[in-house]
């Protein structure tokens, strides 16, 4: 075999260790999450101030999906999230931090998961904050720094949907921008011309679904690109020739579920990979087998398993990554 031939078969993937877990270790995950958010003196807690509201959503959502929401101190969390609200109507990651759309969506999601009603005046203020992020070309910035990213489009549309202010934004322009980020391989990137990336595909497909515009794309072409994210190990990567990672299990699977093509993924192999990413001692999921667990990969690992209909978990909504239970009528799929 030639050297190029050798390289040809050297695709990037991982081996699943034989000793890794083979089923869902639900109870240790609940412990992991509970401990994670309870210990306010931990090094991790203090160092993660800049993403705390998102972190709270990951933890709360993981517990809701695991049917363990009552183990979370709801009043304490609701009050904390409310203190992260700024005068511009948006939410920052922690009190005193600038508003950001990522944390604004996570704040709204967290409040809804706990069944908290967001009053009309607050909703109007949140909506006007989100509206202020939309640019003339239809794109969205994430905060006053002005970075543009299709993630922010998805978060903006989702926020306005969840607070029942869908017509606040210029939907037509928003979709036009999303379609400028649609690549010839069927995927989407962060901005026009940017490389297709599974996380951005989720955001763009989600944006199209929220606005009822999925007919804008060739579903099969996008689904094909997504199906090709599955590696031999069963895990999913975010781009060609990148290593599989549990968080892509969510972004790829949810996108396929939105497109009605979840079966393009080999479910048995996929689950084997996700299970193998669990830490059977500390609890939680890591990005890939053997790495250190964290709440981010934990919520997306659990959510992915829920998409496959795991009966020990609450059913998840593929667009909003929340339980169908907490969304009620807000669920649109």
């Amino acid at each position, binding site marked *: 075999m030639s050297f*190029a031939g050798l*390289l*040809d*078969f050297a*695709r990037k993937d991982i081996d699943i260790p034989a000793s890794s877990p083979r089923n869902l270790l639900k109870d240790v995950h609940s412990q992991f999450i509970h401990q994670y958010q309870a210990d*306010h*003196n931990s*090094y991790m807690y*203090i*160092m993660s*101030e*800049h*993403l705390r509201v998102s972190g709270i959503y990951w933890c709360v959502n993981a517990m809701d999906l695991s049917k363990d929401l009552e183990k979370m101190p709801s009043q304490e969390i609701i009050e904390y999230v409310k203190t992260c609200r700024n005068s511009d109507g948006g939410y*920052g990651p*922690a*009190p*005193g*931090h*600038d508003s*950001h759309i990522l944390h604004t969506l996570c704040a709204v999601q967290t409040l809804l998961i706990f069944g908290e009603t967001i009053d009309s005046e607050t909703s109007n203020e949140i909506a006007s904050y989100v509206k202020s992020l939309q640019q003339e070309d239809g794109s969205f910035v994430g*905060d*006053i*720094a*002005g*970075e543009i990213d299709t993630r922010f489009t998805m978060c903006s549309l989702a926020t306005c949907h969840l607070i029942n202010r869908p017509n606040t934004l210029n939907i037509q322009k928003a979709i036009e921008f999303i379609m400028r980020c649609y*690549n*010839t*391989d069927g995927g989407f*990137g*962060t*901005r026009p*011309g*940017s*490389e*297709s*990336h599974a996380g951005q595909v989720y955001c763009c497909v989600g944006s199209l679904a929220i606005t009822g515009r999925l007919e804008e794309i060739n579903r*099969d072409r996008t*689904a*094909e*690109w997504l*199906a*090709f994210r*599955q*590696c*031999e190990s*069963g895990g999913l990567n975010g*781009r*060609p*020739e*990148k290593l599989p990672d549990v968080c892509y299990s969510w972004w790829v699977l949810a996108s396929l579920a939105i497109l009605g*093509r979840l*079966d*393009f*993924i*080999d479910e048995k*192999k996929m689950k084997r990979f996700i299970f193998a990413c669990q830490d059977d001692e500390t609890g939680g999921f890591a990005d890939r087998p053997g790495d250190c667990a964290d709440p981010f990969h934990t919520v997306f690992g659990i959510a992915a398993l829920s998409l496959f209909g795991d009966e020990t978990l609450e059913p998840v909504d593929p667009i909003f990554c929340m339980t169908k239970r907490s969304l009620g009528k807000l669920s649109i799929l």
Partner: protein
Amino acid sequence: MSDEGYINSSTLYKDNEEWKDITPIYPSKEEQSAVKIAASQDFIDVFAYFRAILIIKEKSERVLKLLEDCVRLNPANYTVWQYRREVLKELNSDLNAEMKYLDGIIEETPKNYQVWHHRRVIVEWLGENSAPYELDFTCDIIQDENKNYHAWQHRQWVIRTFKDNLNLLDSEMSFSLRLLLEDPRNNSAYNYRYFLLTIFDKTEDKETIDIEINLAKRFIEGMPNNESAWNYLTGLLLSNGILSDTGVVKFVEDLYERTEETKRSSFLLAFIADIMLEKIDQQIEAVESAERAKQLYTDLISLDPVRHNYWKHQKLLVDQMLNKTTYTTKMV
């Protein structure tokens, strides 16, 4: 921006004479008590002073140093970067020195959204003279990690912003070709080529597209299992269809013929099946093409079992398309 910041930072701000006029703001009793954890002591101290500065809006050289400590401890804090820009502007600071500082930060944390965004704003302030330096800098980062999304995106932004003033198409095409020769599976580099074709209005230019198609063929020939090269080829033919290029059709049929059955790549089979779908759609030997497409999908199910459901779906699609075309023919 100097090394001094790093030396000073070993001492806590709360013990520093030069900062005694500022009352630090600790957000909670819990965090204050957490000072006992050695690793976070520095963090809590620095950010307590940062909060205090944000309120009084002090803009000074010492604040720039404080912000460097904040960045050292947490380069992802976007409020820190936002305030840094306000201070730089107010003090009319040396932006070239800022760029040097950012070189170091990005080399340490090359996947940090905030620092790349900050860099972009500084380049905007500096104007087009900074473009060549940005191309060199992103080249270095891409050398270290050839699919770094931020670096590629920054480079695209530089090209898009300064393309009217600089003749960049040829040199940028060479840049991406060099990367592809080093790693023919670099999807970011293919994407960048297509971006260049779009930005310099070459997507309708037959001569350019032919060169790119030949390039994709060369890479596929050397590595038939390369998803990125196949996607690039498909993308180039998307608007006109594969059948529009007889050279490509001949190329894949030849490749199919001269490769042993067990060694044929799934991308090759899928591509030929796509040609068959086009033929059915255009009613060219529709029945025969449908037969062949179905055979190819059957082969794909055993060759690429992970995606067996996808290939089955495609197989059903063949029948649907065939029924539709025969129906249309009868109607006519």
